[in-house]
């Protein structure tokens, strides 16, 4: 097993281990969880070398293999996931309340980490889609972790619905790419064939849709702020640094395929810039620190999408630099907000001020991270913002103007974030500096943001690890402090001036924002669409499924008569001769017919059940006659259990009612049952004529040699078609659960233990030393 496979598999294995041990380890589970990311961190040692490739065969016949491809970009991203994942796990150790269900939290977190690593490393298109969906599912679980709160449930559902929409789009896109490119592997697609294919434009549009939903681009940005219901380490890990960047990753990787079309950058650059400006505008309005960061993430994702959307060497270079910077400062800021929440019990900007005295370490971290976000020297954010402006200038002055507007708003909300540290100390409860468990992860990330600013050569080296994979090796530019007097520098100066004006005139800006608040927003339309869909679904169900059982039966029989009749009419079947009927079959047939007629005539449920059993036992006998003892035995037992279950159910049903039939309806019913009988007979007779050579001789010949069993039926079940059996028994298990749930439905159940949502939300006080 290679290192990449281990990096993806270990988080899943550790998730199971954490779930098992959480009861004993308590909050220390987080330390165990952090170990799961060790292989991902070790991948850092492979970044310089050749492209790695690891293949685990799965279903090779269907082109389904777990192929991990470690090019520079994927490995860089994987290491990033490893770093943030480790820090988030360690941060959670101190952050979470003692009453948190660690046995759920860490497994979910690790399952997410494994899915995300799989997503960035996977080269197989189907596996890429599967990992993409798994990140959606784990994100749903993590957002809904505190599911006693309705806002957490709503946020989880919203995030899931929107990313599921994107998931469906991605499935269609990768299917089209695989068909057009003639390979199930991303790296082996025939790009010329893809570009010439009529599926090119649909695949492109679907990819854009998938990326936009996952990376919270307009108008799908609405799920990200409500996803902040998740615990803060989750927000830092999933909703700022990794999962939301899956869409960005898609734009970056698939950009190599789609960038020949002007549609690609024509869609993505305006979309990204619009998201950047609108997200920043909304961020400035927030009073909740976490919501501010959420909208800021939306805005920064827009920036990244626009840069990768440009799809030239310069754009990819700038985007990759900013990707690293953003991961560092945004995760650090989330950790800072977590500390503030932890120590003061609130995240409301209006209730907090002067925290720098109480939280000096956090203050320094926050200043470094926020200044990097605002794009001020000497931090990493400044360098990537320069590159961003440079790229946008090459797109056109208008693009630069929009980018500068977004940058100024970013500057303003970064300042707003820092306002909680200035002025007189005020907080709902007296804050103390958080312990090392909370400050160290934040400080490490802020230190990285600072280091990337102070040492541009290092930043460039990091960025250039992705140059082969993303085809920007030819780009000659470098990361420097001083590029000379360029339009980008002018843009930066304008940004600072505008930003400073916004900060200086903050109350006026706020009033303006309130006046400009649109009455309609994306959230309202989401609710509207959801309500409409629900109404439509219940109407359709009520019209088609809510009928009385006889009506339902008439409908389905009528429909199958129509479809089957059409098929027979189009292609008349040549039916084989029946041959001779063996004498001993006659009593069995009589038994079956008697049972069926008896059921139809019976006026009592008990009689009906017993008579139904008669047909079942008759079938068993006919199996015996055809020398199929296994089938007969199975039929016999199934029939027995069925009769028992019927009897158990019928205890509660009212007696049989005679539904009044009109003469016309009686005629219709007779016609329908005659048609059904004719259809069933035709079907059986048609199946007697073999269209292909039967496969049964193969089983007869091989069951002893290959499966070591003399009972061919059993060998087929457990060996040749064992996978089918596995699926079937899974269905049996699910059915048992479902029936159990249905029987209990409406009974007074156990109420979930009362959980004080506020207590859970506000993390517990630190442990006593």
């Amino acid at each position, binding site marked *: 097993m290679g290192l990449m496979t281990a990096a993806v598999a270990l988080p899943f294995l550790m998730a199971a281990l954490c779930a098992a041990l959480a009861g004993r380890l308590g909050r220390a589970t987080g330390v165990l969880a952090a170990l799961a990311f060790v292989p991902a961190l070790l991948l850092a040692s492979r970044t310089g070398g050749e492209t790695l490739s690891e293949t685990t065969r799965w279903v090779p016949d269907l082109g389904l293999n777990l192929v991990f491809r470690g090019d520079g970009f994927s490995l860089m991203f994987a290491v990033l996931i490893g770093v943030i994942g480790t820090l988030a796990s360690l941060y959670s150790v101190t952050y979470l309340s003692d009453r948190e269900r660690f046995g759920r939290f860490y497994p979910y977190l690790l399952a997410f980490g494994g899915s995300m690593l799989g997503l960035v490393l996977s080269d197989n298109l189907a596996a890429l889609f599967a990992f993409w969906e798994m990140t959606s599912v784990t994100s749903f679980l993590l957002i809904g972790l505190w599911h006693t709160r309705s806002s957490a449930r709503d946020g989880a559902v919203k995030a899931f619905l929107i990313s599921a929409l994107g998931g469906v789009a991605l499935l269609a896109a990768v299917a089209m790419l695989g068909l057009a490119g003639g390979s199930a592997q991303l790296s082996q697609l025939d790009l010329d064939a893809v570009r010439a294919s009529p599926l090119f434009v649909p695949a492109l549009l679907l990819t854009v849709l998938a990326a936009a939903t996952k990376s919270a681009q307009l108008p799908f940005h609405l799920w990200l702020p409500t996803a902040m219901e998740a615990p803060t380490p989750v927000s830092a890990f999933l909703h700022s640094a990794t999962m939301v960047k899956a869409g960005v990753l898609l734009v970056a990787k698939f950009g190599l395929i789609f960038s020949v079309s002007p549609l690609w950058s024509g869609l993505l650059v305006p979309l990204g810039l619009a998201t950047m400006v609108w997200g920043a505008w909304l961020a400035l309005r927030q009073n909740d620190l976490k919501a501010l960061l959420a909208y800021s993430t939306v805005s920064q994702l827009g920036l990244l999408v626009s840069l990768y959307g440009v799809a030239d060497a310069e754009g990819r270079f700038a985007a990759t630099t900013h990707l690293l910077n953003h991961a560092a400062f945004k995760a650090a800021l989330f950790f800072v907000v977590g500390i503030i929440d932890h120590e003061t019990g609130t995240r409301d900007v209006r209730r907090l001020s002067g925290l720098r005295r109480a939280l000096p370490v956090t203050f320094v971290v926050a200043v470094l991270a926020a200044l990097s976000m605002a794009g001020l020297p000497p931090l990493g954010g400044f360098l990537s913002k320069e590159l961003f402006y440079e790229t946008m200038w090459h797109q056109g002055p208008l693009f630069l103007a929009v980018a500068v507007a977004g940058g100024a708003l970013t500057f303003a909300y970064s300042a707003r974030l820092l306002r909680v540290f200035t002025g007189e100390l005020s907080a709902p409860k007296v804050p103390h500096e958080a312990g090392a468990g909370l400050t160290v992860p934040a400080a490490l990330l802020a230190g990285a943001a600072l280091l990337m600013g102070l040492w541009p050569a290092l930043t460039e080296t990091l960025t250039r690890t992705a140059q082969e994979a993303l085809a920007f090796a030819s780009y000659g530019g470098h990361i420097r402090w001083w590029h000379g007097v360029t339009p980008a520098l002018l843009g930066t100066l304008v940004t600072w001036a505008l930003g400073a004006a916004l900060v200086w005139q903050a109350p006026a800006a706020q009033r303006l924002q309130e006046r400009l608040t649109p009455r309609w927003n994306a959230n309202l339309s989401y609710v509207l669409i959801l309500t409409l869909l629900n109404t439509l679904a219940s109407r359709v169900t009520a019209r088609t499924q809510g009928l009385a059982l006889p009506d339902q039966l008439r409908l389905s029989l009528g429909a199958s008569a129509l479809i089957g009749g059409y098929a027979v009419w189009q292609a008349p079947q040549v039916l084989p001769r029946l041959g001779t009927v063996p004498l001993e079959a006659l009593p069995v047939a009589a038994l079956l017919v008697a049972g069926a007629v008896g059921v139809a005539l019976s006026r009592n449920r008990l009689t009906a059940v017993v008579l139904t059993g008669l047909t079942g036992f008759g079938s068993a006998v006919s199996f015996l006659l055809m020398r199929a*003892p*296994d089938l007969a*035995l*199975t039929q016999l*037992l*199934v029939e*027995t*259990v069925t009769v*028992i*279950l019927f009897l*158990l*159910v019928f*205890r*509660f049903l009212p007696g049989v009612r005679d539904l009044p039939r009109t003469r016309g309806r009686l005629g219709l019913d007779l016609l329908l049952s005659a048609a059904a009988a004719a259809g069933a007979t035709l079907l059986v007779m048609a199946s007697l004529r073999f269209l292909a050579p039967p496969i049964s001789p193969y089983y007869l010949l091989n069951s002893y040699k290959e*499966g*070591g*069993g*003399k*009972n061919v*039926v*059993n*060998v087929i*079940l*457990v*060996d040749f078609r*064992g*996978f089918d*059996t*596995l699926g079937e*028994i*899974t269905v*049996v*298990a699910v*059915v*048992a*659960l479902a*029936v*159990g749930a249905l*029987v*209990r*439905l*409406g*009974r*007074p159940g156990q109420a979930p233990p009362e959980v004080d949502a506020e207590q859970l939300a506000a993390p517990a006080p630190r442990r006593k030393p």
Partner: protein
Amino acid sequence: MSGGRKGRAGKRPAARPGPAARPNALTDVGDPVLRVVSRAAFALVMLLTALLLWRGHNAPGGGFIAGLMTACALILHRVANGRCALNFPPLTVVPWGLALSFTTGLVPYLLGRAYLKSDYGYVSTPLTGEFEWATALLFDVGVYLIVAGSALHIAYELIDVNPRERVEDDR
């Protein structure tokens, strides 16, 4: 809650009449003849079950059939004696069965062969003569556990329903 609920929980049900115990034909101990006969029948059927499961690879039988037969035997026992012969809810064996079947298939896969590829061999001992072992039997035991557990779960849930119990949406 119905009187039968305590029977399903299984610990020591007869000694603990529920506060809201209502008559329920299937959980009140009824016919003594049935009870006596059911004991012998129960033992015989369970023996037959074991035989069917064991010989399934080479003769009619197998996990599915054995599972259904076990379910029948236990339902009979439950109806005759008013309490369950198991001291755990039958649903608990279902995940174990699924895990067993799944991992039986996983082992050959991890050894580089096809998923669920079964293996078999022959061992000769002086006492039993030639004796065949097959990994397929483990898979079949998983099937057995799932089928028996699921059928019993459904049956017990239905037995536990008290027809006179009012539920939320009743009018």
